[in-house]
């Protein structure tokens, strides 16, 4: 769909997310009322706290991580592959690349590059297992990636031991991989005025990933094959797409992108993979990919919204309002957006059919309306 940007198209594109947001606000209000908290005041508190400079930095930092996670999921989604295993892929990738990064010393950018490439390689290989299983034996990638998540957890726990890849973190009883030297770190960016907090430098790389995602899917032969397979596998087969190979390659790409999920945190803040390294980001990515409709720009907005909700909720506990209210909000957004997207999709198809019918009827007076085979 190149070019034509009509008002109708924009309205339709925004209809579903706006609808989802409204539904979510209404439902959350009901829950708040039920627990005896004033909804409007709660939302006001969140808005005020969430727009403070420090909160904005945290929002962008979280959004960077979510964005990468959602891109990883979205690559699979575009081919109807459900990579539930982003979680295991990024944790294993972050742990192994952190260990390698801490063990070597290389000049500046090269050090970072080695760590990032290692993470992508590990993530890609871990996801590739699920791809191979599906291509060779027809194993559902949903099942295999979930199981690989558990295996990854076990592998990480085994390796993250002071007898193997971990060391004692100075001044605590936490353990983690050996910290990465200065040369392997990415400095933060002072993007938000009014605070000393810095945004992950990796945000630039994440944005580039979004561009790469778009170009790969929409401008390359490979992307065409991928989208064709996602839209109709039968048509793709008849068109000469080797679907098995596509499954493996796409899973590897998805896993490689998943490998990046831990990088902003690792290279921009913690410099080591320790027991308290954030987990569960892979599942957040699924929700954000759904909300952003697997589109790089949509995902960006969704990731920022998610980050904003998460951070602005931090104030609520101080006011005696349970901050879990935000989890309810996020869940209702995803649920209602999935329904809304499907409704909009169907409406769009009908609309398009009618439009074509109308234009053809108007264009050829010899052909009476309503009569085409």
């Amino acid at each position, binding site marked *: 769909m190149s070019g034509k940007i009509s008002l109708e198209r924009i309205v339709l594109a925004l209809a579903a997310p706006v609808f989802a947001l409204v539904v979510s606000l209404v439902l959350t209000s009901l829950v708040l009322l039920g627990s005896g908290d004033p909804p409007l005041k709660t939302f006001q508190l969140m808005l005020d706290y969430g727009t403070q400079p420090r909160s904005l930095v945290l929002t962008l930092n979280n959004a960077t991580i979510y964005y990468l996670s959602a891109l990883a999921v979205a690559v699979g989604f575009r081919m109807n592959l459900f990579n539930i295993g982003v979680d295991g892929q990024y944790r294993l990738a972050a742990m192994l690349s952190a260990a390698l990064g801490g063990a070597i010393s290389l000049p500046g950018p090269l050090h970072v590059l080695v760590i990032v490439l290692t993470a992508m390689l590990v993530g890609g290989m871990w996801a590739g297992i699920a791809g191979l299983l599906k291509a060779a034996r027809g194993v559902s990638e949903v099942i295999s990636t979930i199981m690989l998540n558990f295996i990854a957890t076990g592998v990480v726990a085994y390796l993250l031991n002071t007898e193997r890849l971990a060391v004692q973190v100075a001044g605590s009883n936490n353990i983690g991989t050996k910290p990465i030297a200065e040369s392997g770190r990415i400095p933060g960016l002072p993007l938000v005025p009014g605070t000393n907090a810095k945004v992950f430098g990796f945000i630039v790389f994440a944005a580039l990933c979004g561009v790469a995602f778009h170009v790969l899917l929409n401008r390359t*032969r490979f992307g065409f094959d991928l989208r064709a397979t996602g*839209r109709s596998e039968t048509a793709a087969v008849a068109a000469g797409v080797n679907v098995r190979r596509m499954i493996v390659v796409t899973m590897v790409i998805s896993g490689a992108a998943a490998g990046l999920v831990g990088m902003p945190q690792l290279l921009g803040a913690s410099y080591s993979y320790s027991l308290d390294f954030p987990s569960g980001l892979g599942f957040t990515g699924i929700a954000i990919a759904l909300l952003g409709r697997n589109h790089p720009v949509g995902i960006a907005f969704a990731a920022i919204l998610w980050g904003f909700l998460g951070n602005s909720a931090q104030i609520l506990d101080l006011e005696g309002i349970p901050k879990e209210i935000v989890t309810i909000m996020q869940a209702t957004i995803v649920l209602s957006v999935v329904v809304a997207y499907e409704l909009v999709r169907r409406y769009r198809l009908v609309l398009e059919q009618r439009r*074509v019918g109308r234009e053809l009827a108007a264009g050829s007076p010899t052909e009476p309306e309503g009569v*085409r*085979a």
Partner: protein
Amino acid sequence: MPLPSRGACAIAAETTPQPPPDAARPAAAATAVELRGITKRFPGVVANKDIDIVVQRGHVHAIVGENGAGKSTLMKILYGEQKPDEGTITIEGREVAFASPADAIAASVGMVHQHFMLADNFTVLENVVLGAEPTRGGGVLDFGAARRRIREISDSYGLDVRPEALVEDLGVGDRQRVEILKVLFRGARILILDEPTAVLVPHEVDELFDNLRELKAEGLTVIFISHKLDEVLAVADEITVIRRGTTVATVSPRAVTSRQLAELMVGSELPVPELRESTVTDVPMLTVEDLTVLSKDGRAVVDAVSFTIHGGEILGIAGVEGNGQAELVEAIMGMRSLVTGRVRLGDEDVTARSTRERREGGVGFIPEDRQRQALLLEAPLWENRILGHQTQRPNVSGPWIDRAGARKDTERIVRDFDVRTPGIDVLASALSGGNQQKLIVGREMSGEPKVLIAAHPTRGVDVGAQAAIWDHMRDARARGLAVLLISADLDELIGMSDTLRVILRGRLVADVDPRSVTPEELGSAMTGAEAK
């Protein structure tokens, strides 16, 4: 609206139905269904316009028309699935307004859908009572009573259905009888059958017609939707023709030939599939040797098939559907693995090549199921232009999609193949079937292919598109294209083939001469009755 042809005028004049001599004619309630002035508009289109149909009780009344003529909409209205914008429906003398199929059923109108709606793992009995379960006392299922009713119905209409049989064990014909039984069980006196023969093989069609005659003899009324004219002529007492959403004539089967009926349906003279002088060369373009393909359960669905198609030759394969045509095509396209056999393109052996390599080698492919295999329905036309040719110019350059090239070439196809569309950014799903097919044919004939595999290239398209597709095939043939033509349309096969062979249970069983064979002879060769 174009003027009807000569034949059509002659028949249209004779719209008064002739009462069949054997029919009893009770004066008062002879009319089972009366539709008057039915009009149904959808935004932008009028699906039905001033439809008038009178169906006599105890008749088999056929409604014929091309795809998209408005038959389905009309039947949905009669069955309460759609409400008419204008017009009246009268059932057995009483005017009705159906809000849902439940109302229609209550008024004794039942519908047998084209696609069966049966639960495979249930018995016939369970399927029949599903949704209309007879109960006794406090809601206990009364299977005994249901079983007796089913036996009763089955016996009185000669349906011969065992209530205990598991549906998954039944053949297609039996399943259809279960569907009919379901409708009768709910007390229907007026049955609508939507394209009931589409899924049946010839002897099952005969059985169905026997059943319909029994129903008729018991005073039931059958409305029979079809576009297979020979069948309609064989079974109907009266025929109403629908064209462009409105009724154009009601005729007696005794007064028309199938050709006249066809011309009434399309409103003009039919295009004739025919080839003029032979363009067959002696250059083999596609050679298939000893090709065998197994089904999942190890049966040979394509059994030692060999043939050669030369440049400028159209080889037609005739056969009842499901005799291995689909598998043969997929094997030639490299979408199915072979047990034995070789496929040669020109003098190159491509047996080990992938589907994509075969396409790159100059094979165009029009698959039988265009919506599932040949289109991305939710993608714009220009992306559909790329499909199947995503390694070839002008769609790509190197690893990149060449949008400008693909779009420009899509414009060319739309122009040259007369695809009716407002533009190339329209989604494929928005086009009518005929226009979708013209786009596919245009795409597959792009880039001067050497071989074209065409499975049912004109199925479900209107007459104009059919003629255009035949023209393009003839032109390409004259330029030296080799075509494998699979079709269920015997006139098309006979008219468009230079060589014609018959496939039965996966084997090529007969060669027939397309210049001398009649459709009847070809039909019996297809069922194996008379293999030469």
